[in-house]
C-alpha cells in the first residue's frame, strides 16, 4: 500500500501497541484528536484511553512521568507536540532520562521513545519550525534517529520502541505527507545506527538526514545530469552515528557536502565535518562544506525561503566543491 511517513508512523505505533502491553502513548492531544498531525489518529479508539493518554499541557511533566513509567517497566512513547515545545522537558531528558542507567549502573533504565516533530517549511508560527537536534545529539545517553521515508519511519520507530534505552525520534514535519512509499504487509524493523547509501557515486558525498533529504534527492538528480556522480547518504541515525558509512564514502569520493536545516554554528553537521577532518583529511581534495540554516531564529512564513537550504544552494555548494578541488 502506498504510505506516507505520517501513515507509517501511525502504523508503527499501532503495531507496537498491539504487540506489547508495556507500550503506552502519551502527550498533548494524542488521544481524542489523534495529534495535531494525526500521527496518533485512531489509536485511542483501538487501544483505549488507558494506553493512549491525553495529558495536561506540561512537557516537563510528560517527560518525567514517562521516565518513571519506563523505570517501572513500561515502554512509554511520549510526544512533544513540536520541537520548540520540547525545551521545557529538556531538564528531564538530559538530567534523568539520559542518565538513569549510568546513575544506577544498569539497575534502572529508561527505555522510552521521545517523539519530536521537527523542522520548518510549513509556514508555521514561531517555535513550530525548530531543528535543535544537535542538543539531543550532544547529550550522552540518548539515541537519536531521523527517518526521511516511510519504511524507515516505520522501521526505526519500531526499533526505538523496542530499544532498551531512550530514543529521540525526530519526525520531519514537512515530509509527513510529502514522501510516499510502498510498505510491506509486515514492514521490517530498521536497525538504529545504520546509514543508508541512497545513491552511489564517485565525485562527491552528499550527506544529510530527515527533512532535508528531499532537497538532497533533487540535487542528486540535477548533479547527475551535470555529470557529477554523487553519492547520497541518508544518515537515518544521528546517535550512534554510522561513522564507517560516512568515512568510507568520503574516502572514495574525496569530497563532502553536509546538509542540514539547523543553525550552522555548533550544529550536528559540525560534528560530521569534524569527524571527517580527524579521520579522512588526507583523502580530501576539497574543503568539507556545510549547507545549513543560518544562525538566526527560524523565520515566519514570508521569510522561510531565505532560511531553508534550497536545492539550488545544495547544487551550488556541490558544484563549487568539485570545482575547488586540488
Amino acid at each position, binding site marked *: 500500500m502506498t504510505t506516507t511517513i505520517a501513515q507509517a508512523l501511525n502504523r508503527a505505533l499501532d503495531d507496537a501497541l498491539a504487540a506489547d502491553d508495556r507500550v503506552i502513548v502519551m502527550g*498533548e*492531544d494524542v*488521544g*481524542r*484528536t*489523534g495529534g*495535531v498531525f494525526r500521527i496518533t489518529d485512531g489509536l485511542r479508539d483501538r487501544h483505549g484511553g488507558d494506553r493512549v493518554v*491525553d*495529558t*495536561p*499541557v*506540561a*512537557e*516537563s*511533566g510528560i517527560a518525567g512521568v514517562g521516565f518513571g513509567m519506563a523505570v517501572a517497566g513500561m515502554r512509554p512513547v511520549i510526544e512533544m507536540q513540536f520541537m*520548540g*515545545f520540547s525545551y*521545557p522537558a529538556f531538564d528531564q531528558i538530559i538530567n534523568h532520562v539520559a542518565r538513569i542507567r549510568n546513575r544506577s549502573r544498569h539497575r534502572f533504565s529508561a527505555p522510552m521513545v521521545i517523539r519530536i516533530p521537527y523542522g520548518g517549511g510549513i*509556514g*508555521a*508560527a*514561531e*517555535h*513550530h519550525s525548530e531543528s535543535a537536534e544537535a542538543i539531543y545529539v550532544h547529550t550522552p545517553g540518548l539515541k537519536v534517529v531521523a527517518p526521511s521515508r516511510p519504511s524507515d519511519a516505520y522501521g526505526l520507530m519500531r526499533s526505538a520502541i523496542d530499544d532498551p534505552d531512550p530514543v529521540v525520534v525526530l519526525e520531519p514535519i514537512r515530509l509527513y505527507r510529502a514522501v510516499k512509499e510502498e510498505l510491506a504487509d509486515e514492514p521490517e524493523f530498521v536497525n538504529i545506527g545504520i546509514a543508508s547509501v541512497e545513491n552511489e557515486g564517485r565525485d562527491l558525498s552528499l550527506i544529510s538526514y530527515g527533512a532535508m533529504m528531499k532537497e538532497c534527492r533533487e540535487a542528486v538528480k540535477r548533479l547527475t545530469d551535470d555529470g557529477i556522480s554523487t553519492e547520497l547518504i541518508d544518515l537515518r541515525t544521528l546517535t550512534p552515528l554510522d561513522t564507517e558509512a560516512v568515512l568510507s564514502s568520503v574516502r572514495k569520493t574525496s569530497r563532502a557536502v553536509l546538509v542540514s536545516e539547523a543553525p*550552522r*554554528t555548533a550544529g550536528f553537521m559540525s560534528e560530521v565535518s569534524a569527524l571527517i577532518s580527524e579521520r579522512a583529511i588526507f583523502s580530501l581534495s576539497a574543503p568539507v562544506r556545510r549547507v545549513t540554516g*543560518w*544562525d*538566526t*531564529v527560524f*523565520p*515566519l*512564513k*514570508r*521569510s*522561510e525561503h*531565505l*532560511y531553508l537550504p*534550497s536545492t*539550488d*544552494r545544495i*547544487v*551550488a555548494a556541490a558544484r563549487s566543491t568539485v570545482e575547488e578541488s586540488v
Partner: protein
Amino acid sequence: MRFTGALTSPRMRQILTPSGALVDEAPMDDALASRLYRAMVFARTYDRKSMALQKQGRLATYAPFEGQEAAQAGSAAALEVDDWMVGTYRDAAAMWMQAYPMELLFAGRTGHEHGGRVPEHVNVLPPSITVGGHMVHAVGLAWAERLQGSSRIALTYFGDGATSEGDFHEAMNMAAVQKVGTVFVCQNNGWAISLPTAEQTATETIAEKAIAYGMPGVRVDGNDVFAVYAATREAVGRARSGEGPTLIEAVTYRMGPHTTADDPGRYRSEADREEWVRRDPIERLRVYLSERGRWDEDWQMRIEEQASSEVERAIVLAESLRAPEPEEMFGAMFAEIPPHLAEQLAEAKAAP
C-alpha cells in the same frame, strides 16, 4: 490539619446576566459601557474576518477568540495606557485595546516578522506562542517598574491549559513572594486544544489555585464584561498600590476551533457550544445598553461599518508590507550584526 480543595464554593461573580439584567452595581457609566460594546464589535469583526482571510490562504494558521471578547475587553479596559500587557496567540482583542496596532496583528498572521515591531509607546509584548512561558515575563516587567519607581503594572493573559505548565507555578509564586504588581488573567475557555478543563486539573476552579501562593483568586463570569472589568479594576488597584498580585479566572468558552487547523468535532459536541451561544458576551451588553437607551440599530450599523473599514485598512496595510529582506533577518538577532552573521548574510545574498 487536613486541607482539601473543597473549602470554598466555586461561585462565579456575575454583574450582568446572559439576558442583560444587572444583578449587582454596574462598575462603569454608560459612556464606558458603550465604548466597550463598540470595542467588542470591532473585536468580533476582526476575528471573523481573520477566519475568512485564513480560508482564502491570506493568513497563516489563525486562533479565533469568538466568545471571549468580554474576557479580553473587560480586563484590558481596566489598564492605564502604558501598563504592560503580555498575552497569547488568542488575545488579539485585548492587545488591540492596549494599542497594539491591528495591522501588526495581521502582519504577524501573514507570517511577517514586522508584526512584532510594536510602536515605541506601546507596552505590549508580541503574542506568546509557547504556552505558559510568558507569565513570568509579566512578573519581571512589573518588578522592574517598581524598582524604577514607576507605578506601571503588568497584566498577563493565559488559558486553562497554561495553568498546568511549571512556569505558571513559578510565576505565581515569585510574584506573590515579592508582592509584585502583576495581574494574572486566566481565560478558562473550557478547552486546551482537545483537552477539557476537567482533565487539565482536578480542581473545580482555576481561581482556587491562588490559595497555593497566598494570593487572592477571583472567579468571574468571563462573558460578563462588567464582572470582568470590576474584578480586573480591583486587581489592578491592588497591584498599583503595592499590595501584590491577583489571579482572575474568567470563565468563558471558545466558540470556534482551537485554530484554523483544528477540528473540534473530534472532541466536543455541538450541544455544548449551543449552550454558550445563549451566554454571548456582546448580546447581553446590547440588551443592557438598549434598555438604557444607549443602543439602536443605527448605531449598530455605524459601528459595524467603522469596524469593517478599520479591519480593511489594517489588512491592506499588513498585506502591502514588502517582503522582509535578508538584512532584516540577520540584522535583528543582535543590536549590532556580529561577524559570523554578516558573513552568513553575504552568503545568503549570494545564494542562487
